[in-house]
């Protein structure tokens, strides 16, 4: 089966580079995991807001744990957006197909060794690039 873009909570936009990285005919799938939502205990208004975003994008919404949904579809390759969310990171490890994890457009360059204990230590490094337009940014 052709490629799939796994759309998750963190990247509800077709502008995300994950869509240009995937083949044009890739299916766009969102796994609606009721157990995960129950664990997060999101209120109705949160569920409505994300469903509005998903319907607006026109992605296919399938009930179930995303890794189960994607594995059942037997796709050869899955494209998805990066996320710091431990649930999403764990799901990525459970996908049997080849997974490409694509970053959002770069926002700021910060050296890896910067002390992140307080914001202004980060900001003193970030401000060298963060005030430049995205076309002048590089990933870090």
């Amino acid at each position, binding site marked *: 089966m052709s490629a799939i873009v796994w759309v998750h*909570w*963190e*990247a*509800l*936009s077709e*502008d*995300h580079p994950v869509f240009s990285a995937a083949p044009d005919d890739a299916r766009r799938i969102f796994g*609606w995991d*009721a*157990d995960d*939502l129950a664990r*997060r*205990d*999101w*209120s*109705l*208004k*949160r*569920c*409505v*807001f*994300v*469903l*509005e*975003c*998903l*319907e*607006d*994008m*026109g992605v*296919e*919404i*399938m*009930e*179930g*744990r995303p890794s*189960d*949904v994607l594995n*059942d*579809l037997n796709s050869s390759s899955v494209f998805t*957006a990066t996320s*710091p*969310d*431990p649930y999403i990171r764990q799901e990525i490890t459970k996908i049997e197909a080849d997974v490409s994890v694509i970053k*959002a*457009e*770069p*926002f*700021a360059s910060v050296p890896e060794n910067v002390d*992140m204990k307080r*914001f202004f230590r*980060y*900001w003193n490094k*970030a*401000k060298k690039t*963060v*005030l*430049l*337009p*995205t076309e002048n940014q590089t990933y870090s």
Partner: protein
Amino acid sequence: MTQPRPANDRVHLGQDSPDRQALIERARHLSPHLSPDDTHVSPIRGGREGADERLSWVDPIAYGRTRNHLDGAVTQLSPFIRHGVVSLAQVRDRVLSSVGSASQAEKMIQQLAWRDYWQRLYAEMGETIWEDCEAYKTGFQRDDYADELPEDILNADTGVAAMDMFIHELVTTGWLHNHARLYLASYICHFRRVKWQAGARFFLKHLLDGDVASNNLSWQWVASTFANKPYYFNLENLQKFSGSHVDTSYHNNKPLAGTYEALHLTLFPNLDPPVPQAAQQTKQKKRRRS
């Protein structure tokens, strides 16, 4: 636990709901954990159109001047940023294109950078983001704080008018001005002595932009478990930054009234008394002279 279903038995919802009421019913059907008495839906609607509309409101100069005021020029872009409907880079570019020089955009871009900072930390911390980063610096131990939110906070019935209004706004609309979040978090944590984790869960349940990284670490900053001191405020400060729509009268907000020194003694009785502001200024002047 919900049993996994075979692929051909999963519900496909690729098409638009005919109207908002149908979409609300669909969201409820997909989310069996929702209680029947959870009925509030936000006036902020998800989707690209709402994000574009708010991007057009971006006014970095007015934002820099008024963002701390509850009726200031904020954009309500945060739910769209949280879910990646617009990226930080897209907002930054929009901000830069609306000013003559990058320095005029700095305040607003710095606020965007906070999200980038929290996200980077979350990637390193994972689930430990739910643990205290450091000990409380309030003169109290972790066990001195209640595990759960009291009923009167959940019901917006604390008797402190401004806090009740913020809670009501949070629960009914899913959005709260950042400064109001800090006031409410400080009230819960320090005036009511509840663990920050209980407050963080409450915010994540309701805020459309609720994001574990920004939310938990901001709560920890207020609590002092990710800062050098606790964040607290008094009624005078609340009055300075609240618009006319918030009831900040003394009569309806008595627990918040008092000087910072007096509140410090009440809220943190185990700590040394703070140096009064006047004495601090004299000390600074002396230091400058020497």
